[in-house]
């Protein structure tokens, strides 16, 4: 069986879905952050696949940017979670609900 573009796309879609499911299911802020990283990387697979398929580098360039952005996001996100941990001694997102209604 030859690997076509569709295989990559389906794989990335599955990964994306897993990431989404992780975001929805997990309660710990850190794990949610990791799931989001998974989603971004799933997209990266798509980008690379398309890039190869179209014989271009545009997609791959974008992937580099995405990786950089993901790193920045992770840094900021972890910092925020640390601050929250300072106050609450917990990063359980279900406990962060003082603002509502």
């Amino acid at each position, binding site marked *: 069986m030859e690997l076509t573009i569709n295989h990559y796309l389906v794989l990335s879609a599955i990964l994306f879905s897993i990431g989404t499911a992780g975001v929805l299911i997990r309660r710990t802020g850190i794990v949610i952050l990791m799931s989001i990283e998974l989603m971004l990387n799933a997209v990266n697979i798509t980008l690379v696949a398309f890039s190869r398929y179209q014989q271009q580098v545009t997609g791959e360039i974008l992937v580099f940017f995405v990786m950089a952005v993901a790193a920045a996001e992770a840094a900021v996100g972890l910092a925020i979670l640390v601050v929250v941990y300072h106050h609450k001694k917990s990063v359980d*997102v279900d406990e962060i609900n003082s603002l*509502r*209604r």
Partner: protein
Amino acid sequence: MNFSEYAWLIVFSPFIGFLINGLVGRKFSEKTIGLIGSLASTLSFVISVLIFFQYSALSQKAPIQIDLFKWIVAGGINVSIGYQIDSLSLVMVLVVTGVGSLIHFYSIGYMHGEKGFARYFAYLNLFMFSMLNLVLGNNILLMFLGWEGVGLCSYLLIGYYYETDYAPTAGKKAFIVNRIGDFGFLIGIFLIIQNFGTLNFTELSTVVAKGTSVGNDTIFWITLMLFVGATGKSAQIPLYVWLPDAMAGPTPVSALIHAATMVTSGVYMIARLSFLYVLAPETMAIVAFVGGATALFAATIGTQQNDIKKVLAYSTVSQLGFMFMAVGVGAFTAGIFHLVTHAFFKALLFLGSGSIIYALHHEQDMRNMGGLRKKLPVTFFTFLMGTLAIAGTPFFSGFFSKDEILWKVFNYSSLLFWMGALAAMLTSFYMFRLVFMTFFGEMRYHEHGGHHVHESPAVMTVPLIILAVLSVFGGFMGIPHVLDVFHVGNYFEHFLSSSVKDSLPIVFGTKEEWGTMSLSVIIAIIGFTIAYVIYLKKKYVPGDDSTIKGYKKVIYNKYYVDEMYERTVISGTIRISKTVYEYFDKLVIDGIVNGVGKSIRRIGEGIRGTQTGLVRDYMLTMIIGVSIMLVYVLVNKFMMIRL
């Protein structure tokens, strides 16, 4: 000098009096106020007398028109403030200003010491102004202005003693009942505008005389609706209920407004529009029978009243019934003639009763009177003249006019004649009952605190005497031709003929005329005799209200008509309004308005619940949104493929 050029002064002289007394009257002394008021009215009288002499000398008695300025102009309405002088309006003006001036003078004495003396005279002058507009106006709208204006003055004057409970209530009742009548009058006006396109009396009569294409049905409705207005103003069934209550006003007011002038304006109106009424025989029949029924009905109530003014009030209603009977059968002249004589004797009777009330310090219950003959000789004598006149004693004024009505009615319908005759008998009865209870027998009034009963001052007795003279001799201007031994002719009918002509065909001859005349005399004597037996011979005095029983109680309570109106129309309307207000206005209409607002807010409150504060819920919502949108795209895609 052509006096008719000054006709506007007849109308505006009282108005000037009203302005002076109304605006600055409070600062004047009673004498000044009274003189201003009375002279304003007298000036009108003098001018109208001058015009009368000039006018009656004319061989060709065409109506004189005095147009002042355009009043309302829009589309089919084009009316001016303008006055019309012809024989009919002149007769009315003379009665109004003549009797009115006498009553003004009388009031100076009667109202002496009352609070609001200036207010009283201002209202009285305003009334004169309105009444003169009513009778002189050359179009129906101006007549309506006077019509409502006199209603207003009546309201104000009935409620003159505003610190009491009953007087303002009676005034309000008068105004509202009149308005109900005016409702009909208005519709009559609309119909005239719609069908004739003019409201001017002369133009209208010209149009009608030329032969109009307007259908009989329409004319029937026009005349009937106008008559509805007349039933209100002239206190006919079913709208008579306000007049007895109107006695709450000062007695001169009752004399002027509720006996001599205002209440007769319905009769005047029909006479004025006689050219229309003759085209609607059905309406005429209704008018005649309503008049007959009122005459009889009110007379029965009059027999059981103990309040001296109430007796006179029902008597007025009854006499007005006679007038309507007359105009209804087409004897317009007879109706107006009775109007004039009635103005004399009824004004006299009211002023006389006023004199009694004045002497007895506002005692009006006849059960507490009696034997006043000696104490109040002038009042007694003049009152007796008035009573003889109204009872139809031969050669007194009431005899001529009432007899003429009965004779004319006999030519129209014998049933109506018998109704009239019976009413005449009752009239004689209750009037003599009144005289006997008041002036004869023992004195039942308890003098107290140094107040002695004594005759009224000259300013009051002189008008009484003048009116007594008119009541006695006033009938001679309209002598029926069977009695016309000197062949002077029926001056009244002759004079009036230039503006109003009878439409009633005389089918019977002289023999029958004599018959009806003698019958009416006999009837008067029967009434007198019964009263004499009961109240003078047996010295019967009705007991307290609680002791009145049986049919007498029903009659004494005016057949409970007021109560019936109160229970059905008035409280019904209020109850319906309250119910509608509570359950429809507040609950339904406002409920919908507020409900829309409230339900929007409630929805808002409801969907606030989605904002749980939990990130996971938010993300789930996002995912659901994403899914729906992606499905939407896929559906679109498949539709594209199908296409």
